[in-house]
C-alpha cells in the first residue's frame, strides 16, 4: 500500500501540491485525473523521489520513503514521451534496471525475452529504438519499467501521444497486464475516459489538491462539485448561486413529439449527443445510441428524470 500524507510542494511562486493525501491500494490501479497544471505530474515525481516534498510523508508498505533516494525506491516510471535511451537497443533499454540491480547477463536476457513476450514484441531485442513505431516504443518503455519488478508502477499520461485505435488497444492491454501482474499502479491522466477505464479508484485533482477520490461508478454517480461534473464530461450542469444542479445525460431522453427543438447534434462514435432547447428557453444535452436521430430544427419531446438529478456545491473544498 502506498500512502501519501499531506504532501506539499511549492516552486518559486506557485504551489504545485497543496496538502495532498492519497492511498493507492496494493494490486490495484489508482488513476489521478486532472487538467494540466493541477499538480498530478509533480505528485508522481514526489512518489518517485525525483522531487523532494516541502512537507508531508510518503509510505510504501508502511516504510517512510523520505530518506530513500530515487534510485533505491523500487518504483517504476513511464512517461508520455517514453524517454527511451536513444543510444541503446531495445534489450539494453529493458535490461537497464536489471543491470543496475547487478543481475547476470543470462538472467537479464531471460527476463528481457519474457517481458518482450508480455508486451507483445517478441524477438525485438536487437532493434534500435528509433526504428520502433510510437506504440512499440510505449510497449518497450512499459517493459523497461516493469523489468525490475517495481513495488509501484507510476505512469504519466503514457498514451497521450498515441492516436485513437492504437490508444484503445494499448489501454485494453494495460488493463489486462495490470490485473494479471497484480500491480500497484498510479496512473496520471487528463482524460476522464482513460481514468474510468483503468482505475479501480479515481482521484480528481485541481489546483494542487485532491477534490474527490472514489470508484469510477461512484464518481460518475455523485461528482463532488459542479466543476468535477463538468470535467468528467457532464453537460447538463447548471449553477444556482453556490450550488450546481447536475442532471446526468442518461436522465434526459428525447422522443417524437413536441415541446422542444433540436439545436445541435454530434456523433461521438457509438453515441450521439443531441442539444435540445425547451420552449421555456432552457437547454439540455441528451445521449442516444439510436442510429436514426432527429436533426437540428426538428421538433421533439424531452423527458427529464428529475429523480436522477442532484445538487452539489458549485466549488467544493
Amino acid at each position: 500500500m502506498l500512502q501519501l500524507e499531506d504532501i506539499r510542494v511549492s516552486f518559486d511562486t506557485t504551489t504545485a501540491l497543496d496538502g495532498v493525501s492519497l492511498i493507492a491500494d496494493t494490486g490495484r490501479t489508482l488513476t489521478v485525473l486532472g487538467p494540466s497544471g493541477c499538480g498530478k505530474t509533480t505528485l508522481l515525481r514526489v512518489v518517485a523521489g525525483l522531487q523532494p516534498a516541502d512537507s508531508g510523508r510518503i509510505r510504501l508498505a508502511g516504510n517512510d520513503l523520505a530518506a530513500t533516494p530515487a534510485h533505491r525506491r523500487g518504483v517504476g516510471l513511464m512517461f508520455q514521451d517514453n524517454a527511451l535511451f536513444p543510444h541503446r537497443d531495445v534489450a539494453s533499454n529493458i535490461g537497464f534496471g536489471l543491470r543496475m540491480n547487478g543481475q547476470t547477463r543470462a538472467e537479464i536476457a531471460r527476463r528481457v525475452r519474457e517481458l518482450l513476450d508480455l508486451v507483445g514484441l517478441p524477438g525485438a531485442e536487437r532493434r534500435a529504438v528509433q526504428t520502433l513505431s510510437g506504440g512499440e516504443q510505449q510497449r518497450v518503455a512499459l517493459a523497461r519499467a516493469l523489468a525490475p519488478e517495481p513495488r509501484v508502477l507510476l505512469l504519466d499520461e503514457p498514451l497521450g501521444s498515441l492516436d485513437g485505435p492504437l490508444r484503445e488497444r494499448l489501454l485494453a492491454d494495460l488493463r489486462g497486464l495490470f490485473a494479471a501482474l497484480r500491480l500497484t499502479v498510479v496512473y496520471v491522466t487528463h482524460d476522464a475516459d482513460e481514468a474510468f477505464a483503468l482505475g479501480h479508484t479515481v482521484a480528481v485533482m485541481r489546483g494542487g489538491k485532491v477534490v474527490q477520490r472514489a470508484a469510477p461508478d461512484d464518481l460518475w454517480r455523485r461528482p463532488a462539485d459542479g466543476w468535477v461534473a463538468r470535467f468528467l464530461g457532464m453537460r447538463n450542469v447548471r449553477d444556482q448561486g453556490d450550488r450546481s444542479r447536475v442532471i446526468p445525460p442518461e436522465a434526459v431522453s428525447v422522443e417524437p413529439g413536441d415541446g422542444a427543438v433540436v439545436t445541435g447534434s454530434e456523433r461521438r462514435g457509438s453515441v450521439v449527443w443531441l442539444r435540445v432547447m425547451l420552449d421555456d428557453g432552457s437547454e439540455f444535452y441528451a445521449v442516444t445510441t439510436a442510429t436514426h436521430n432527429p436533426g437540428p430544427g426538428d421538433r421533439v419531446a424531452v423527458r427529464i428524470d428529475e429523480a436522477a438529478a442532484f445538487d452539489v456545491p458549485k466549488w467544493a473544498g
Partner: protein
Amino acid sequence: MLLKHKATETAACIALVGVPAAFLGLFFVYPLVAIFHRGLGSSFPTDVLTDPATLRVVWFTVWQALVSTALTLVAGLPLVWATARVAFRGRGLVRALVVVPFVLPTVVVATAFLALLPESMQRGVVPILLAHVFFNVAVVVRVVGGYWARLDPSLWDVAATLGASPSRRFRELTLPALRPALAAASALTFLFCFTSFGVIVILGGPHFATLEVDIYDLATQSFDLRAAAALSLLQLGAVAAIVAVSSSLEARAGARMPLAVEEVAARRPRGWERPALAAILDLAALGFGLPLAALVVRSFATPAGAGLGFYRALGHETTALLVEPWRAVEYSLVYATAATAIALTLGTLAAIALVQRRSGRWLDTVVMLPLGASAVMLGYGFVIAFDTSPLDFRDAVWIIPVVQALVAAPFVVRILAPALRAIDPRLREAAAVLGASPARVRREIDVPLVLRPLGVAAGLAFAIALGEFGATVFLARSDRPTLPVAIFRFLERPGATNQGTAAALCVVLMAVTVLAVGVADRLTSRRIGL
C-alpha cells in the same frame, strides 16, 4: 512559373551564387593558387615535407593542440555544468561573460598573459597552453552547455527510478549524451589551437612554432617560398583532415539524445553542489579576470608610478609607426565596419544560396574553406598574388577589409544558414495563402525572423575583423595600421615604454571589442552562437 519571372530568377541566381563565388575566386582561390604556383611550380616538395625540421614543427603543432584541447575540456566542463544545469543568481551574466574571451583578439590575450606572468615564464609552452585554454573555454561552454541545458531530463528520471545512482547516471547517460557536443567542442578547440598564430608568435618566443607560425617565418624571414608553400599545402591538408575526422567522430558519437526546443529549467544547487558551484565560479573569475586585470594594471604602471602616461603617449609620434598610435583605433574601426558590411553581404548571399538551392551545397564547403585555410596563408597569398600591376593591391585601402571579411564570412554563414533553415516553411505558405507576394513574404516573414541572427553575426564579424591578426599583419601599412598590428609592433620592441604602449592599446582594443559585441548583443538580445 510565369515567363517574366524567369529573368528575375536567373538574375537572383547569379547574385546568390555568382557574387560569393566570384569574390571567393578572386580573393581566396587565386591567392592560394598563387602561393602554390610560385612555390611548387618546379617540383613537388617531398624533401620539405619529410624534412625532420618540418616533422618537428608538425609534432609541436599537434601535441600542443591536443594538450590545449584536453586542458580546455578539463577546465571548461565544471563551468559547463554550473552554467547549464544549476540555477543561481547572476547565471545570465556569467554565461555572457564566459563568451567574452572568445571574441577578444589573440594579441590582447597574449599581451595579457605577458603582463600576468613573471618574466621567467613569459615565453614558452605554459603561457601558450594557458592562453589557449583562456580562449576556448568559451567554445566548450557554448557548445556543450547549450546542448546540456536542452537535454530531456525525463531520461535521467527514468534511469533513477530504474535504480541508477547519480554517479551511474552520469556515466551511463550524461557522458554518452554529451559525447556529440564534446566531440564538436573538442574538434573546434583543436582546430583553433592547431591554427593558432598570434598567441604562439607572442608567447612562444623564438623557440616555438606551429605550422602557421612556421609558414609566417618562412614567408617573412627566410623568404623560402617553396617551403612556405609546402607547409601551406600541409596545413590545408591537415585542416581538411581535422574537419573530416571530427565530423565522422560526431556522426559516430552515437544516437543523439532528444533535445528540448527550449532550455530545460535548471534547478537550484543542493548539498555538495553549493560549495562546488561557489568554487567553480570563483576559479573562473580568477582565471578569466586575472590576466585581463594584469593587462589593465600594466597599462597604467608607468615608470613614474601609476598614471595615464602610456595612454597620453598614444597621441605622440613614435618611430614604430608613421602615425600616432591612437590613429590605429580609428583605422581599426573603419576597417572593421567595412569588413562587417562585406562579410554580411557575402555571408547572407551564400547562406540564402545554401538554404535555397541544391547547387549551393558545394558552396557550403567553399565558403567554409577560409576558416581552415589559415589567416596567415590568406595574408601571405594576398602579398604574393596581388603584387604586380594591374593586380597590385598591396597598398589599396580596401584590401584589409576584404581579407578581414574573408576570415569573418564563414562565421556569418554558420549563424545565418541554420537560422534561415529553421524558418518553418509553413509560415511562408501561410503568408502566401493570405495574399503576400514572394517579395512580400521575404520582407514580412524571412527578414524579421533573420534580423536577430543577423545582428549576432554582425557583432561577431565586427569582433573578428577588429581582432584579425594573421592576415592583416601582412597587409597593414605603417601609415594606416590596425590595432592588433600596432600592438604587435610595440610588443616586438624592448623597453618599458613600448610594452606599456602595447598594453594601453590592448586595453583600448579590448574595450572597443567588448563594446561592439555588447551593443550587437543588446540590439538582438540573444547570445552569440557558433
